[in-house]
């Protein structure tokens, strides 16, 4: 009997809590931590935790509990862990998510549960467009951004006959479509390969025979390692320059080796971008992990900084999710990109895209170094379909 009364009292306390400022914020952090994509989740999580550390180990003055879940790059698993975070852990805010297919599976349930959701990586077009939500934010980009930037760069450099390659799935098709939105020249051929293909000798032989001016590829993760190595081994890099996005980065470079030297990529950020926030981020990340941060870590670092600023603005009242989302929208903080992060009407950042070139540093390690700005204050092509103002 006494236990029951005590239980009632406790639940009354729990029910009453939303009105008061909480002493803790719970963050559900979903990413891919296992399988070949696992290294990306690791970088994402490392960046996020460093962001919290730089905010004094807290977010907006509140103690943080980060509940980390692995989606195993499977949409159904992602949905399962998202439901667990919403229903059992009752998280205040959700963050993370590497892959767009996982994002599409968990987006609706999270938004319908009324929980603010910050994507630290995936930016599929439907969410940037018609399905946008006042609860959803991105500290990364809409998927097409880097491809559009490379399309512009290749166009500006005067290449007239470009060979395009990508894996045969939605993101691959979107990538080449994004590239062609800005590249107006002739397409020598457009080749789609099986997802997770290991050997590209047949395709590289066809590519050589087609004699294009340049090649543009989108091969994320292990596919990029295989393709870049084999392209280098075929001796083509000198004759046919290779441009890419999401194919060469600090997660793949150690495995790609010297074959990647001289290849150019486009991204919203580079480790040597000159601004105080980035310098602090890169220095401390290196100290901690003895490795250069990747775009994944940079994006997730910004996720933590954004949450820190927003929660501070609410005065720690994270229980009011609507107010929290409004605070995220209005939050002002210095991003690793340099300056304040600006959201478009669809809550995707308005940002620059840079050209980066892979070079061997003084320490013998490969890194992609910022060369020039390709797109300034770029807005994605889907924002016009988003009804939000």
């Amino acid at each position: 009997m006494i236990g029951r009364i005590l239980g009632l009292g406790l639940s009354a306390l729990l029910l009453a809590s939303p009105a008061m400022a909480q002493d803790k914020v719970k963050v559900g952090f979903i990413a891919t931590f296992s399988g070949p994509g696992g290294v990306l989740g690791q970088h994402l999580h490392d960046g996020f935790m460093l962001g919290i550390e730089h905010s004094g180990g807290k977010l907006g003055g509140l103690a943080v509990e980060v509940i980390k879940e692995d989606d195993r790059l499977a949409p159904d698993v992602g949905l399962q862990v998202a439901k667990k975070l919403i229903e059992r852990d009752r998280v205040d805010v959700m963050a993370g998510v590497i892959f767009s297919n996982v994002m599409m599976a968990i987006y609706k349930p999270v938004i319908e549960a009324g929980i603010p959701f910050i994507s630290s990586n995936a930016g599929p077009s439907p969410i940037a467009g018609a399905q946008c939500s006042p609860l959803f934010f991105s500290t990364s980009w809409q998927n097409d951004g880097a491809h559009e930037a490379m399309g512009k760069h290749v166009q500006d450099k005067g290449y007239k006959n470009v060979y395009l390659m990508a894996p045969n799935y939605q993101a691959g098709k979107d990538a080449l479509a994004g590239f062609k939105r800005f590249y107006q020249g002739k397409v020598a051929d457009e080749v789609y390969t099986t997802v997770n293909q290991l050997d590209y000798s047949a395709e590289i032989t066809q590519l050589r025979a087609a004699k294009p001016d340049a090649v543009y590829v989108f091969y994320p993760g292990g596919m990029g390692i295989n393709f870049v190595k084999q392209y280098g081994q075929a001796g083509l890099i000198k004759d046919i320059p290779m441009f890419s996005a999401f194919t060469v980065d600090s997660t793949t470079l150690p495995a790609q080796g010297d074959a990647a030297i001289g290849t150019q990529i486009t991204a919203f950020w580079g480790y040597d971008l000159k601004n105080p926030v980035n310098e602090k981020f890169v220095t401390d990340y290196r100290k901690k992990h003895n490795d250069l941060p990747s775009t994944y870590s940079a994006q997730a670092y910004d996720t933590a900084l954004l949450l820190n600023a927003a929660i501070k603005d609410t005065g720690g009242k994270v229980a009011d999710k609507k107010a929290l989302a409004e605070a995220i929208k209005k939050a002002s903080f210095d991003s690793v990109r340099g300056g304040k992060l600006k959201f478009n009407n669809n809550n995707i950042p308005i940002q620059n895209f840079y050209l980066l070139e892979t070079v061997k540093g003084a320490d013998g390690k490969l890194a992609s170094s910022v060369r020039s700005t390709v797109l300034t204050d770029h807005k994605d092509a889907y924002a016009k379909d988003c009804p939000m103002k």
Partner: protein
Amino acid sequence: MDPVLLLVQALNGLQLGVMLFLLAAGLTLVFGIMNLVNLAHGSLYMVGAYLMAAFQGWTGSFVAALLLAVPATLLVGVAVELIVLRRLYDRDHLDQVLGTFGLILFFNELVRVIWGPAALFVAMPSALSGTVALLPGAPYPVYRLVIIGAGLLVAAFLSWLVTQTRTGMLIRAGASNPIMVAALGVDIRLLFTLVFGLGAALAGLAGALAAPLLSVESAMGDGVLILTFVVIVIGGIGSIRGAFVAAVLVGIVDTVGRAFLPILLREIFNRQVANAAGPALASMLIYLLMAAILAFRPRGLFGARG
């Protein structure tokens, strides 16, 4: 169609085929002689590649790493046989599938625990990293030619081992009637361990040779395992000769199909349809080949069991 291009693509196909043969030879013997469905064969390939990376980091030499990685994978294979697979021989195929699938998960996680989630790099020796002009206008990577050569050497060695030696005689006998071999007083357990070790060493060799071409990462053996099963089914379970013919066949059909099918489709359909259907159809080709062959020869090309 350009004949030089076709020739180079056939060579690419041969190289893939030789790689598949190294994997299929072990798998077909294990399946044929021990009647064991070993899904973990791809894991041994992955272990070979990881050990190659580890030994190369340690010794700094490609050849030394190769010479260490292959026997080390053999030992891993023997350990797996002694600790796990022995208990599965008398079970039915479903139990074996479950058990060896468990091994896949175990090995995928093990390499992540030891070497971390990031892919590893294996350098190829600089003498082999260039290209050589086989025909004017058709440069070909030297390393891939070396793989073809190594694979053919292994095939010749296996052919000698199986047809000319006493061990080979027992292997052939084991493939066609293992119970009779045991009844004749041959230590079948030792033979099993030997065959499994040989298969593991070949898988390790394939992994170690592929390591400079591919990203060495967790689960890298899972995809190639499916192709290997296609090869041994086409070739006939238990037949080394079948494995060789089928591996080269699958390698060439897959490569030439990937290269030319989308182009052929473009002659018939518009570009968009061809681009969408081409890769899908090309990746189906080997399964169509398998279905066609099984329709006429249900035991595969060189099925050992009558």
